[in-house]
């Protein structure tokens, strides 16, 4: 046991002596949370607006005033001619153009044939849809007021409830994803590279002829990364709660338990990769191509799985991070209990057991 601790101490010294790597391992979660939490927002605001009204009257002015009074829009141009619409869009000057029909007020009051066109720059589909929806709701509010004045209300009032994330912050969606990615990066990628490095430089041979059992050497390598991943996990959770304002809605114990299963699984994956790779660059390539890429693309961390075509959805079932992220979203964001994450936990535990068994077996046959 004393030998084991001597090895662990050696591994810690290795890691902390490489300042750049240490800084990256501990700083990366902070950077990622900042980027995801603050910079990625699906919120739409300060959209510049162009208006074309062939014959300005009280009604068009009322509608334009309502739009401009809102936080979402800034009135930036009043167009003299509809042909200018193409130009202002091409120069990227505005995001939305509001075009009224001729004799708007007259037609509105008497024939009901008046039209207001909302023309959005559709380049970015979601922004376009969101801002058209905002504009439509604002104008619909004006319409309802008109009706109320005319005492002909036939209204259905939709009462909208936004579950789990009422302020619709991007961070709610991304925090679990960042956890899934960082833990895998630290545990699997760094472990596999550091074991491969010892093989490459030949120091592994020296260790193997020492009286320490191979299993102990491998385990000693994983301990520091385990510790770092726990520090990262704590960093992420503390930042999520105190900086990003994402509360832990469910049980903290359950959340930590899930994370531990995932960490063990990732460590096992790292050991497995290192038993295949003999050089650092191979280890880097395998963990990059076979691990980080699927995690970024197929885990649902950034890109929603439900909009992917079925072969990719099917493939995503094999990505451990997908199950982890799904479980964390349920526990942390939605506050659900053990019952509802039973499936995710079962799959993760299964994967962990399988990977630990496989990596032990491979290392035994290769090393002893």
């Amino acid at each position, binding site marked *: 046991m004393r030998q084991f601790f001597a090895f662990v101490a050696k591994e810690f010294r290795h890691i902390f002596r490489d300042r750049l790597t240490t800084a990256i391992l501990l700083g990366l979660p902070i950077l990622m949370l900042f980027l995801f939490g603050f910079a990625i927002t699906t919120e739409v605001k300060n959209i510049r607006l162009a208006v074309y009204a062939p014959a300005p009257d009280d009604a068009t002015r009322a509608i334009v005033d309502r739009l401009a009074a809102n936080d979402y829009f800034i009135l930036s141009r009043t167009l003299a001619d509809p042909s200018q619409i193409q130009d202002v869009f091409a120069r990227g000057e505005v995001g939305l153009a509001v075009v009224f029909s001729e004799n708007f007020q007259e037609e509105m009051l008497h024939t009901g044939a008046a039209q207001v066109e909302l023309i959005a720059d559709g380049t970015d589909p979601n*922004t376009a849809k969101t801002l058209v929806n905002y504009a439509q709701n604002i104008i619909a509010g004006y319409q309802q007021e008109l009706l109320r004045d005319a005492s002909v209300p036939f209204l259905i009032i939709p009462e909208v409830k936004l579950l789990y994330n009422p302020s619709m912050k991007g961070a709610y969606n991304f925090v679990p994803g960042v956890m899934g990615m960082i833990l895998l990066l630290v545990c699997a990628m760094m472990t596999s590279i550091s074991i491969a490095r010892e093989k490459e430089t030949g120091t592994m041979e020296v260790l193997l002829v020492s009286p320490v059992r191979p299993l102990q050497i491998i385990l000693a390598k994983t301990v520091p990364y385990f510790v770092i991943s726990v520090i990262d996990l704590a960093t992420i959770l503390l930042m999520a709660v105190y900086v990003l304002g994402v509360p832990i809605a469910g049980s903290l114990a359950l959340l930590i338990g899930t994370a531990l299963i995932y960490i063990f699984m990732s460590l096992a994956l790292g050991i497995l990769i290192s038993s295949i790779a003999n050089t650092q660059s191979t280890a880097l390539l395998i963990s990059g191509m076979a691990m980080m890429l699927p995690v970024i693309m197929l885990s649902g961390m950034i890109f929603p799985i439900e909009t992917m075509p079925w072969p990719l959805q099917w493939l995503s079932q094999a990505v451990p991070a997908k199950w982890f992220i799904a479980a964390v979203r349920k526990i942390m964001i939605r506050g659900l209990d053990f019952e509802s994450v039973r499936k995710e936990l079962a799959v993760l535990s299964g994967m962990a057991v399988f990977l630990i068994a496989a990596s032990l077996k491979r290392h035994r046959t290769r090393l002893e």
Partner: protein
Amino acid sequence: MLRYLLEKEFKQFGRNKFLPRMVFMFPFVSLLVFPLVANFDVRDMNLSIVDHDHSPMSRRLTQKASASGYFRVTQVADSYERALRGIEDDTADIILEIPSGFERDMVRQRSAAVMIAANTVNGTRGGLGSAYLAGIVNDYAGELRAELMASSGRLVTPSFDIIQRYRFNPHLEYRVFMVPAIMVMLLTMMCGFLPALNIVGEKEKGTIEQMNVTPVRRFEFILAKLIPYWVVGFVALNICFFVAWAFYGLTPVGGVGTIYLFASVFVLAVSGLGLVISNFAKTIQQAMFMMFFFVVTMIFLGGLYTPVASMPDWAQRISDFLPLKYFIIVMRSVYLKGSHVTDMLQPLTALACFAVGLNALAVVSYRKRS
């Protein structure tokens, strides 16, 4: 002298197991797979309906919702609690609850309420979904109003239509948004990062030391490294044009010449960035870490997915320093809107400044002698 160095670079490039294949595979794979994966399209949301009213009017509303094309009714629940359980186990994304007495209230009090509850863990999906559903409810109210009014023989009421139109991407396809931006990423990789890795690789192997004792000037050495990747970058860009046309029917509305002009300035800028990285990194691993940092920052702050305009101020200030941001705007404008060079003088100036600044930094930080 440059000729011999170029000969060497092209031969090495051709003999590499990985690189030549990548030039051809990368545009195909990234343009075909990436838009499938990075799809934030909000369609086919799973709708759970709780109808307490069971009246003709409430049935018409549920039919309208399911026929809208945005929703797929996956559950008809008898209570809100049951429907909420559907959201918890992810079989439903959004709930429409119609209270009992809906039709009666509509007829007698001329107004009624419905409830919409959406899972907003993914804010875009939840937010847009509930907005669609609210829109459908409003449309339905208008329809009812017209019918009831017509039957009661009332006069025309003040009203107008709101028409939605989307320029440049009328069907709001997400991939149309992604494809031009992916081309930008591709040029960044090929012309910025690959030559940097190549130079760091020569450092690690020690072959650069041999070059340093020859009379080769550093400018020539670096130029010989960059030219092949510029060629490769433009080949890949043209493959991208082809893939975009063949698989998505997407051709630039604006001039291809405009794209080439901006691409060459952009490529100079990212080559400079790559050289700066290669000057500071001693090993490939360090270079990879630095690139990972830049890629992550550029992807998320450069407006690849989310509009720069809606980011917080500090993030917008940072994004001003990312060459990628300007070129993404340019590519989308030329590809979708048909913008001309004269419409985009500001990004052109910015990119030119980056090209000059980054290459100057690269020359200053390069040392042939220690």
